[in-house]
C-alpha cells in the first residue's frame, strides 16, 4: 500500500501558520482546520457525515472498549511520534482482548501557537498507523488552550472492537505450567524517548518500536483461541505486566534472565543510565501466556509476522511463590522482579 509521506504531502494552506484560540471555538477557523488538516487524512464514510456522533452497525456480541491519553515529550522521537503512539496504543489495548479493533475517536488538546506544520506531520502519522491497523477514525474533537496550559499537544484516543466468540483472555486465567512468550526486544521505545530528551547528550540510534499488534494477535488466535492472557507492556515495562498477571491469577512466574531479548544499542543506553530494561516502556511488543502444548506452534506463528520476528519463550508459570515474579540469573540464583516504584530515573550510583 502506498502512503503519502510528509515530504510528498505538503502542509495544507490555512489562513494562519500556527494554532490560535479561535481554532478551538467552533466557528469558521475551526471548520477550516477540520476541513484542511483532519478530514482529508482520516476520511471515511462515517466521518464525512460530520455529525456530532458516529452511528455504527453492531453485529452483536461482546465489545472491547478502551481509552488512552498521550502526553509524551518529546513529541517526535526516532522511530515515531505522538501520533503513532496515539493510534497504536489504543489499537493494542483493544487487540489484547482478542478483539479486532474497528473504530477510534480522537480528541486533541492543542496549545495556542503550535505550528500547523507540526500538527500536520502528526496527523499524517496517525493516518498511516490507522490504515496499517485497519481502523477508522469515526469521530473527533479539538480544543485549543492558552499558551502554557498544555505542552504542545495532548491526544486522547478511545476505541472499540468486537471480541470473537470463544475467546476469553484475562490476567486471571494463568495456569501452572503455562509458557510465557514475548514478541520481541524490550525497552526500545522508552530508551528512544529517554535518549532523545535534551540534556542526556546522546546521539541516539535507538528507535521506538511503536506498532499496531492486532494482526499479530489474530495470527496467534488462528493457532489457538485458548490464549490465557495477553498484554502490551507499556508504562512500567514487562515487569509490571507480569506482576499484574501473577497477582491476578495468584500464581508464580519464573523467568530465565538469559532468554530475555534486548537490542545491543538499547542495552548500551540502559547500562550507561543505570536503567533496567524490564521496567522500560514498549509500544510494539506483547507478552502472551499460553498452555504449554500450543507454545511452539504459537511461537512459529508469531515469528512469521513482521512484529513477532524475534519472539521467544522467556519463562513459565509456576506453583512456587504465588503472586511473585522471579528471574533466574546466569549464576543459577533466583531473584525477584518487583513492581517498579514510580518513574525510572537515570541512576548515578
Amino acid at each position, binding site marked *: 500500500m502506498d502512503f503519502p509521506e510528509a515530504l510528498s504531502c505538503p502542509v495544507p494552506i490555512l489562513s494562519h501558520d500556527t494554532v490560535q484560540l479561535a481554532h478551538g471555538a467552533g466557528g469558521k477557523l475551526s471548520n477550516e482546520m477540520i476541513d484542511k488538516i483532519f478530514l482529508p487524512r482520516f476520511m471515511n464514510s462515517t466521518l464525512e457525515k460530520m455529525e456530532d456522533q458516529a452511528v455504527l452497525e453492531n453485529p452483536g456480541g461482546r465489545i472491547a472498549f478502551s481509552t488512552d491519553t498521550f502526553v509524551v515529550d518529546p513529541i517526535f522521537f526516532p522511530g515515531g511520534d505522538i501520533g503513532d503512539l496515539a493510534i497504536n496504543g489504543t489499537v493494542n489495548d483493544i487487540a489484547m482482548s482478542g478483539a479486532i479493533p474497528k473504530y477510534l475517536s480522537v480528541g486533541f488538546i492543542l496549545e495556542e501557537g503550535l505550528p500547523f506544520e507540526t500538527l500536520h506531520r502528526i496527523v499524517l502519522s496517525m493516518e498511516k498507523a490507522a490504515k496499517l491497523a485497519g481502523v477508522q477514525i469515526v469521530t473527533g474533537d479539538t480544543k485549543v488552550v492558552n499558551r502554557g496550559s498544555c505542552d504542545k499537544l495532548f491526544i486522547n484516543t478511545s476505541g472499540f472492537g468486537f471480541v470473537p466468540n470463544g475467546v476469553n483472555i484475562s490476567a486471571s486465567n494463568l495456569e501452572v505450567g503455562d509458557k510465557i512468550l514475548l514478541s520481541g526486544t524490550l525497552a526500545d521505545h522508552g*530508551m528512544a524517548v529517554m*535518549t532523545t530528551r535534551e540534556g*542526556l*547528550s*546522546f*546521539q*541516539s*540510534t*535507538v528507535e521506538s518500536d511503536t506498532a499496531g499488534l492486532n494482526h499479530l494477535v489474530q495470527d496467534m488466535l488462528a493457532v489457538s483461541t485458548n490464549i490465557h492472557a495477553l498484554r502490551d507492556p507499556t508504562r512500567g515495562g514487562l515487569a509490571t505486566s507480569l506482576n499484574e498477571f501473577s497477582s491476578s491469577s495468584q500464581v508464580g512466574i519464573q523467568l530465565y534472565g538469559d532468554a530475555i531479548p534486548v*537490542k*545491543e*544499542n*538499547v*542495552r*548500551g*543506553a540502559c*547500562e*550507561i543510565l*543505570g536503567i533496567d530494561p524490564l521496567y522500560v516502556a514498549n509500544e510494539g511488543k506483547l507478552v502472551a501466556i499460553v498452555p504449554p502444548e500450543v507454545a511452539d506452534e504459537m511461537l512459529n506463528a508469531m515469528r512469521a509476522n513482521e512484529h513477532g520476528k524475534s519472539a521467544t519463550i522467556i519463562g513459565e508459570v509456576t506453583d512456587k511463590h504465588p503472586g511473585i515474579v522471579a528471574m533466574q540469573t546466569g549464576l543459577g540464583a533466583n531473584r525477584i522482579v518487583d513492581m517498579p516504584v514510580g518513574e525510572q530515573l537515570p*541512576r*548515578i*550510583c
Partner: protein
Amino acid sequence: MCLAIPGKLLEIFDENGLKMGNIDFAGSVSKACLEYVPEIEIGQYTIVHAGFALSVLNEEEAKNSFDAWDDLIDRANAEGIEMEKLERPD
C-alpha cells in the same frame, strides 16, 4: 557506587574550552568530557561516569584476567570436568 561502563572513543572535539569525546556504547553514542584522560586515543576504550571519562581501559590487563580464568578452566579440564573456553575480547 559509581556506575561507569566501558565505551569506545569515536571522536574528539572541543566544547566550551573543554576536551570532549563521543563514546560509543554498543551503538548508543554519548558525549563525555575527556579532560581527565589526556592521553586517550580514538579507538581506545574508556569508562565514563556522570559524563566524565575517568580511565583508559588497559586491554593488556583485560587479557591477563582472561588468562587467569582460562587457567581455572584448564585445571578443571584436567580434572575431567567439561568447560568451554570463553570468548576473548579481541
